[in-house]
């Protein structure tokens, strides 16, 4: 199929349906301006598609994602304990089509042809663009022997999350749950430790005698150190054992065993349930499109407009966990970057330079117990001298509280999900 056919097809399928249900402010005015293609409908891509149409109602915006809904990792640790149904975290892309007139293409993109400003889709079809935003999230570098169906990572939410949930529910009352954490940078530096506190609370109430062993490749807790140190040595000192500087070298699915090195000494660990979180890198699409330099794991971009800094990739933008600006890899941050990128694209289409002083933020409100939660936040400002985003203000809650568990945290998640996906 050539690109013209494909575009026609999409307009009939996506645009036609969309018009019927668009809010008045968008209807009729749709789809005459530049085409922007967004690849990946996670926190980064969904927010970008929505805000492109919200602030640029003339634009033709196409969202490419093989799924029909995104399952949010944010909040997914509470799926493991049965507190949150996974359906609450599942956000259909139809909302972006029906409310904002985003055209949907439900198949993977396989590469970008930047010379011809064209996206190659898995079916062989293509999409032409004036700007393209790539937001495919993360991919993994697993150790030898790592079978995700036996030792789930649950680091992309969905079937992996439910699998780990099932394993935890089925675990013996005196079983051991291992969480193995890779070296930074990885998606959500607070989330492995949040997973430990949430599951520890569940064990305390449902499986007395069960233990959690955290094997951390890092020298110390990588996110919210004070909060989680207090939890592991305080309220959970009988349940959680935290071991830093542990490298996992290989996994043995049959025997549920990890071969590890700790402080230069090799040994092995077996456990009933093993959550082995692999080391992470940009989504495959970015490697296949030549957007990640040799020896790097993420894609270099200019943080003023998230355009690739590699030669030959003008108008190719990368946002969210796939890019390498060094900002927190988080859903809140992915949403934040999407807004900066959208603003810069609108300015570019109007012949203007990007905003020279953008800000971005990240936040998390991890539950510590059934009754309390903590929080952290960081804001980044652009530093012209280094052309980078620098953390200019950050904090961690003085202590976990009931209010954050019951109001601020859940209230934040509802608004973050709706600002990104609805």
């Amino acid at each position, binding site marked *: 199929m050539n690109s013209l056919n494909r575009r026609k097809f999409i307009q009939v399928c996506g645009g036609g349906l969309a018009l019927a249900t668009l809010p*008045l*402010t968008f209807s009729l005015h749709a789809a005459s301006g530049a085409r922007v293609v967004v690849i990946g409908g996670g926190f980064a891509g969904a927010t970008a598609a929505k805000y492109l149409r919200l602030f640029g*109602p003339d634009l033709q915006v196409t969202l490419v994602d093989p799924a029909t809904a995104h399952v949010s990792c944010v909040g997914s640790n509470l799926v493991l304990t049965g507190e949150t149904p996974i359906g609450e975290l599942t956000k259909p892309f139809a909302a972006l089509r029906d409310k904002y007139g985003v055209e949907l293409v439900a198949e993977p993109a396989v590469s970008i042809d930047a010379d011809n400003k064209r996206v190659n889709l898995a079916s062989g079809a293509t999409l032409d663009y004036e700007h393209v935003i790539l937001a495919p999230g993360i991919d993994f570098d697993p150790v030898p022997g790592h079978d995700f169906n036996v030792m789930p990572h649950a680091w992309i939410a969905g079937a992996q999350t439910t699998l780990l949930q099932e394993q935890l529910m089925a675990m013996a009352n005196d079983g051991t749950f291992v969480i193995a954490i890779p070296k930074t940078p990885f998606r959500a530096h607070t989330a492995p430790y949040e997973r430990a506190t949430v599951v520890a609370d569940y064990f305390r109430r449902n499986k007395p005698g069960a233990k959690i062993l955290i094997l951390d490749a890092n020298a110390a807790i990588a996110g919210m150190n004070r909060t989680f140190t207090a939890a592991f040595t305080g309220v959970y000192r009988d349940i959680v054992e935290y071991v830093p500087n542990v490298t996992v070298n290989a996994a043995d699915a049959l025997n549920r065993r990890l071969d590890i090195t700790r402080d230069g000494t090799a040994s092995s660990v077996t456990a009933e349930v093993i959550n082995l979180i692999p080391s992470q890198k940009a989504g495959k699409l970015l490697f296949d499109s030549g957007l990640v330099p040799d020896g790097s794991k993420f894609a270099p971009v200019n943080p003023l407009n998230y355009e690739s800094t590699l030669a030959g990739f003008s108008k190719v933008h990368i946002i969210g966990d796939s890019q390498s600006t060094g900002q927190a890899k988080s859903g809140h941050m992915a949403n934040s970057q999407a807004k900066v990128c959208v*603003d810069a694209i609108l*300015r570019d289409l109007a012949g203007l330079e990007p905003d020279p002083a953008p800000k971005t*933020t990240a936040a998390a409100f991890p539950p510590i117990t059934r009754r309390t939660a903590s929080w952290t936040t960081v804001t980044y400002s652009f530093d012209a001298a280094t052309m980078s985003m620098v953390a200019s203000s*950050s904090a961690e809650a003085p202590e976990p509280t009931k209010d954050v568990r019951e109001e*601020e945290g859940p209230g*934040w998640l509802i608004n973050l999900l709706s600002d990104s996906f609805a």
Partner: protein
Amino acid sequence: MKHLATPLIAFTLLAAGSAPAWAAEHTDPSAEPPAGRLLATQCFQCHGTNGQSQSEIDSIDDESAEDLLEELLEMKASRKVTVMNQQAKAYSDAELRLIADYLGRTGGNDDDHDDRDDD
């Protein structure tokens, strides 16, 4: 309003009666984005798109620019460690004014959402 609405949009605004101000303000694709908009969108992760909260977190689309600015400056100066106080510290006074002006200018349409908590 600085950015003129296209005839089509003007028509639909009339038809809709209470269409929000921001919709009209953003319709000219060749114009510079309104001042403060990009900074203000960073509030929406927690406070909802266009400051209209869908949860128990406060909406921020229903206050005057002056009130918003006063609150933001108080938060920036506060020694208490809270999410908002910390966020406010990352912005210059001029940036906080841009945000407050944008939200004060574009908000004020309470009728199409329910502001569940106003404390």
